[in-house]
């Protein structure tokens, strides 16, 4: 199992959609074979089509608002006294998170395929909110599946979806979180795939959805590379890219353009959700060495019991609260291109406190996990090391949780 240089990672899967021969694939009901194949043909054609790329770039620039800022966290750097800490403020993007890239591309694809309805899943509500925005922009009807527990804890995003005209369908099965929302969304697609396009909200699901999402979020690292060169004259000699990992869409997009660099120069650090410090439950299959299993159409490391039932996860962050992980990250872990670790709920909250104390930046609970590890490691790193944390979401949606855990003054 090896990384091939010069070929995008999303295109390094085999004919059946497996990365490294064992991650990903298409474990789907027969009914979905045809619509998936149609989407593959369309995507493979369009990603080579200059007109389509120009259209995508036009919307990314004028509507999503690219590039998002790349800023130095001066005060935090000074306080910690180690590496230089920077942030790519992806939450600047229209809607407040990286999910807008994937949503935009899926709507563009849906338009090309002639479908008038698009359905999607959501955990933190960002994927759903962005899909509802993009659907509205492109004149598509939109249905969002969301776990009932997540609806309760991410109200601001639910309101936004409804305001954009999307129908939000609560999912009451299982743990009532993201995993169940994805299942329900896939079931809905099984029953309506002739008329409806599906957008999977992260780099998970059948191989084609992993590829489309990774292709879309890679915009983040395309921008970052230019910004790094502008700032330092070239890609820094010691660069460390920290990103939270739930399904893995923002981290993959944050790293993609740097894939072929030696990891001694560009190190990737993925931070999973370790859950409450006192709980045995977590959403960190890579950190805790979960076994390979099949979830939502793809083979991946996934939290499960010995029988193969998917286990419930627990995390303060709805966006990371997923028992599996993108096949792309399983691949990057096994070939040792990226390093994965986790942060607990409490560690993420502490990082949020520290970042907001020193900087005019309010990372949501998801990137707060990445900040937690970046802060801890930066202290021990040399001053010429450039640490970049992807602040891929804004804390506005987490107001209620932050208020109840840290008090009003942190909101």
């Amino acid at each position, binding site marked *: 199992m090896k990384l091939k240089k010069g070929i995008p990672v999303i295109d390094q899967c085999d004919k059946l959609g497996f990365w490294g021969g064992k991650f990903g694939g298409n*474990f789907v009901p027969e009914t979905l074979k045809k619509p998936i194949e149609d989407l593959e043909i369309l995507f493979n054609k369009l990603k080579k089509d200059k007109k389509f790329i120009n259209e995508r770039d036009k919307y990314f620039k004028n509507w999503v608002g690219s590039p998002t800022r790349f800023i130095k966290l001066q005060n935090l750097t000074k306080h910690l006294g180690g590496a230089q800490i920077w942030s790519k403020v992806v939450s600047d993007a229209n809607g407040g998170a990286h999910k807008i890239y994937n949503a935009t591309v899926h709507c563009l694809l849906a338009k090309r395929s002639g479908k008038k309805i698009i359905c999607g899943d959501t955990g933190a509500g960002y994927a759903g909110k962005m899909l509802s925005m993009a659907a509205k922009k492109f004149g598509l009807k939109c249905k969002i599946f969301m776990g009932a527990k997540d609806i309760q804890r991410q109200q601001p995003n639910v309101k936004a979806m409804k305001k954009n005209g999307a129908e939000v369908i609560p999912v009451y099965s299982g743990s009532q979180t993201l995993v*169940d929302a994805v299942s329900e969304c896939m*079931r809905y697609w099984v029953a309506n*795939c002739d008329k409806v396009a599906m957008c999977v909200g992260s780099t998970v699901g059948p191989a084609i959805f992993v590829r489309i999402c990774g292709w879309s979020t890679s915009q983040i690292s395309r921008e970052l590379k230019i910004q790094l060169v502008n700032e330092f004259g070239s890609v820094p000699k010691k660069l460390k890219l920290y990103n939270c990992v739930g399904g893995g869409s923002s981290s993959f997009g944050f790293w993609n353009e740097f894939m072929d660099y030696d990891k001694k120069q560009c190190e990737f650090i993925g931070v999973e959700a370790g859950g409450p410090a006192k709980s045995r439950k977590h959403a960190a299959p890579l950190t805790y060495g979960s076994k390979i299993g*099949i979830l939502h*159409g793809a083979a991946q490391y996934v939290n499960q019991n*010995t*029988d193969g039932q998917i286990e419930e996860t627990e995390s303060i962050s709805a966006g990371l609260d997923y028992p599996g992980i993108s096949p792309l990250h399983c691949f990057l872990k096994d070939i040792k291109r990226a390093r994965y670790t986790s942060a607990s709920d409490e560690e993420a909250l502490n990082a949020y406190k520290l970042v907001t104390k020193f900087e005019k930046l309010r990372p949501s609970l998801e990137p707060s996990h990445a900040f937690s590890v970046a802060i801890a490691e930066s202290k021990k790193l040399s001053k010429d090391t450039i640490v970049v944390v992807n602040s891929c979401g804004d804390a506005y949606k987490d107001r209620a949780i932050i208020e109840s855990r840290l008090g009003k003054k942190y909101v």
Partner: protein
Amino acid sequence: MYNPISYAFKKAKSEKRPALLTYTVAGDSSKKQSLEILKSISKKVDILEIGVPHNTPVADGSQIQTSSYRAIKNGIKVNDIFKIVKNFKKFDINKPVILMGYYNMIFQYGENEFLRQCKISGVNGLIVVDLPWPENKKFANKCKKKSIFFIQLLSPTTTKNRLKQIIKDSHEMIYFISMLSTTGGKLKVSSKEILHNYDKIKKINSKKNVVIGFGITEKTIKSLKKADGLVVGSAICKEITSSIKKRQNPVTNVYNVVNRLKNKIK
């Protein structure tokens, strides 16, 4: 290869009726009761499909989900399912049994070990919802070596070319999904259209036994009578759920439903 599934179709054909296949979830509502249900409906049913419950099913509607969650909550494990089959076979050795489920359960058990246990307990066929063709080629061959039918699924979205290839690689029984739906959906296409698609499959190879499933209830079963076999699942799971709610005996109630279904296709 001899397999009682083939015999069941032959027998139904000789009686000029479709084979009746039922689907119940192993361990629903308890290990003991699911075995009792199998025993009680066995004389009315030609082939028993037993669901291996999974907690992230991507193709099941609410009725089967409810049954599956109930069974898992009541502690059903894969090994218990083999025990249920084994005990059932002690009661009626000739009745064919098919296990139906999702691939992760087999993958975690280990394909070879899973098939070995199938053989020991008396499983005659397997339906793996999320292991489509061509991904299932290797596993289907392993099944064949053990004289266990791997049952390929076909759907209205399956292209003609694909139909031919899948049918060519299929064993004696094929499962045709009647419409674009999860299990238990309301029949949203006419039986004429379903039978038209069914005929397309039979035309490619008339020797394969093709069963139709999804959306079949007491109301719709008669209109599809000409098929080689008909599968009823969600309607039975629903009956178990409502029996529990009404504090009635699911075993008798399910038997009554199956009896009525059988009478409609006689």
